[in-house]
């Protein structure tokens, strides 16, 4: 030890400077309990006076320094029993989470391992047993993972090509959704074509008169226009029909309306059928999700959207970008599987989509899948939480 330390007869102090510029003096034995300060004193001879105050790392603000020094002041006394020390530690550690994190950081920068261990243990106790939402709340963490990413642990181990495709499409559609949102904010209200009321749509879904007729009509229209896709549609529809387990799936699921069913003929307005269809087929505008969205919980809506968009994307990709039989068939398997996972709420919907899918128009629809969608989402998530 340098002799200028040994020769001090009176109580000696070490000078410390925090990042904000303030300088204070601390009893030597207390300060030297921190390895970083000890190093500065012994190796570099710093801290002996105000001018040569040891500059502490930025993470150590005056409040944290005060806490750390309290800790050091207690523990540097050699005579204490283990019980005393533990008891002190337990009381010491009682502080709000924010301070606890700051303290961990500060102690780490001073290389004070016992205190880092103590705070780490306290933080671990806070995290243990809590749900992700609770943890995010406590530590102010952003919930910025997509559904796909949250399921990723499954992805790696289930080498399922269907899930891979789904995830890829999720990611892509999510990006597109964000872009559309931007556009939506700029575009004007008159974009809205479909302002059917909620009730109208509801009754439409629940199988009112206009329904089946409308579908049939649109289909026949389709046949006239797209002959080449006939075969595919037919086979596709059959495939779907075979898996159509619950004919009432739609009713069960959606007790709120769907919006944006541009391709669906208007309800109770068969006379307008032709007009409406023409509107749609004229490829007028890109339509966004509107009105009914207000009824749906935004978080859930986002989940639904992402799943739906990927759905759409699958169709789009196959029908538009690679309209050959093989990929269409593959897509079909995907879609079937998807339908099955959603407890077959989709078959009828898919039927329509596929009839009109190759229409060069984004078909936007929201479905409030309170029942099955949530079930599906929770099923996937529970996989991980199990």
């Amino acid at each position, binding site marked *: 030890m340098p002799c200028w330390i040994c020769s001090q007869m009176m109580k000696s102090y070490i000078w410390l400077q925090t990042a904000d510029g303030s300088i204070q003096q601390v009893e030597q034995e207390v300060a030297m309990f921190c390895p970083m300060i000890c190093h500065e004193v012994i190796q570099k001879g710093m801290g002996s006076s105000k001018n040569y105050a040891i500059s502490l790392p930025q993470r150590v603000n005056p409040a944290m320094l005060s806490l750390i020094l309290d800790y050091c002041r207690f523990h540097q006394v050699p005579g204490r029993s283990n019980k005393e020390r533990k008891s002190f530690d337990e009381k010491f550690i009682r502080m709000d989470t*924010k301070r606890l994190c700051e303290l*961990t950081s500060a102690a780490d920068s001073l290389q004070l391992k016992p205190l880092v261990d103590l705070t780490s243990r306290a933080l671990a106790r806070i995290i243990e047993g809590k749900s992700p939402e609770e943890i995010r709340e406590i530590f*102010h*963490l952003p919930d910025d*993972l997509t559904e796909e990413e949250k399921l990723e*642990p499954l992805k790696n*181990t289930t080498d399922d090509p269907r899930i891979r495709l789904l995830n890829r499409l999720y990611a892509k559609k999510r990006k597109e959704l964000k872009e559309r949102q931007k556009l939506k904010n700029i575009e004007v209200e008159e974009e809205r074509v479909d302002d059917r009321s909620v009730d109208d749509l509801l009754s439409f879904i629940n199988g009112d008169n206009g329904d089946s007729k409308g579908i049939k009509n649109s289909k026949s229209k389709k046949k006239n226009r797209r002959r080449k896709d006939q075969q595919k549609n037919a086979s596709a529809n059959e495939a779907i029909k075979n898996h159509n387990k619950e004919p009432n799936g739609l009713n069960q699921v959606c007790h709120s309306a769907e919006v944006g069913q541009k391709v669906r003929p208007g309800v109770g307005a068969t006379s307008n059928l032709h007009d409406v269809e023409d509107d749609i087929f004229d490829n007028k505008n890109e339509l966004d999700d509107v009105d009914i969205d207000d009824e749906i919980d935004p978080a859930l809506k986002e989940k639904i959207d992402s799943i739906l968009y990927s759905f759409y994307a699958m169709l789009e990709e196959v029908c538009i970008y690679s309209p050959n039989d093989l990929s269409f068939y593959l897509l079909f398997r995907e879609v079937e599987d998807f339908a099955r996972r959603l407890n077959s709420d989709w078959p009828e919907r898919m039927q329509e989509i596929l009839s009109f899918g190759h229409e060069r128009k984004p078909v936007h629809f929201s479905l409030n899948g309170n029942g099955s969608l949530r079930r599906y989402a929770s099923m996937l998530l529970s996989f991980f939480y199990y």
Partner: protein
Amino acid sequence: MDDVMSRDLISDLPQSIIESILTRLPIRDAVRTSILSSKWRYKWATLTQLVFDEKCVILSNDRCKVEDGLVNFITRTLFLHQGPIHKFQLTTTHLQCCPDIDQWLLFLSRNDIKELVLELGEGEWFRVPSCLFNCKKLTRLDLFRCEFDPPPTFKGFLCLKSLNLHQVLVSPEAIESLISGCPLLESLALSYFDSLALTIRAPNLKFLCLEGEFKDICLENTPLLVAMSVAMYMTDDIAEHFEQSSTCNFNRFLGGVPRLERLIGHIYFTKFLSIGDDLGRLPITYAHLKLVELNQVSFEDMKEILVVLRLITNSPNLRELQISGSSNTLAAIDAPDLDFWEDECPSNCTFKQLRVVRMTDMSGVPHEMEFIKFLLANSPALETMSISPCVYVMDGRLNMLIELLRFRRASAQAEILFIQD
């Protein structure tokens, strides 16, 4: 909007601290942090310590389900993990002999495993695969209920510091050569072996824990031994073997441990030490021995009493002594040879540092009382002497107390505590 309040508190802490926190969580909670936020996705994946037990899965009565669940969880976790794994611990009563364990060990052997703890269930014992013997960096190995069969080319774990084999099927030669082949070995624990005859050569050994039926133990080269705890069970074969033996066990076991600080013996340990010829005064002094605990000492056997005496009279710095008796009042038919105490005890023996003595399971037989008398008379620094009578002795307690009152005490501040149940 209050930016300060909503600022992320924790994600930007150094990875070493994050790992310090995640290591203190059960593995399930640690892996679940991957869905907290984008920054947290892979924070858990570089943890170097993985500890698995049945809390990783939801318990149910369906044993198969729990087993499958546990196997799946571990496999998935290992698969998603990145980087070296220094510690792998698996404690389970459900898994025994499972092919997945072999695969995990192979994976670990390629990932710099240093500490391996496998505590498996009852049933068919898991046979340790050969890849384990390729783990060059192993510093700690704990195996419970396994079969351990090193290949002939195996020389030892050069970095191994701690070895714990509990209910492990392994040949005595293999254990001996394993111990000798681990030059850095500091801590050795062997439990539940049958009729094991063992010679321990471990120049760096500090802690020794033995439990089981040992036919013979010899500490040939353990100069640095600091603490030992031995529980020896006896079968008739072993007892016979002992009868015929003439080598001094005391010397073979305690002859080469000058640095010993703590000695704990159970069941037949004292008997084991008493076998063989008595060498009289011991050549070595246990200058560091501070704690001696000998259980089930039979005070009718003069040789066992001699063992205790030899031990404590050669330990000038002994601070704490605990003796439990296993005397049978009915068996003490012969008149006790009380001259023994005059003849054998060194007259100038003083236990200068002895502070605490605990005598438990005392039956009040003459030699027990003489021993207590001897201690009280020669311990000037004694603070507490506590005596607990054996539960079967009800009538003799009063006599014990009467005798105790008469004993002279070298220490003025000694308290005698008679502890009734």
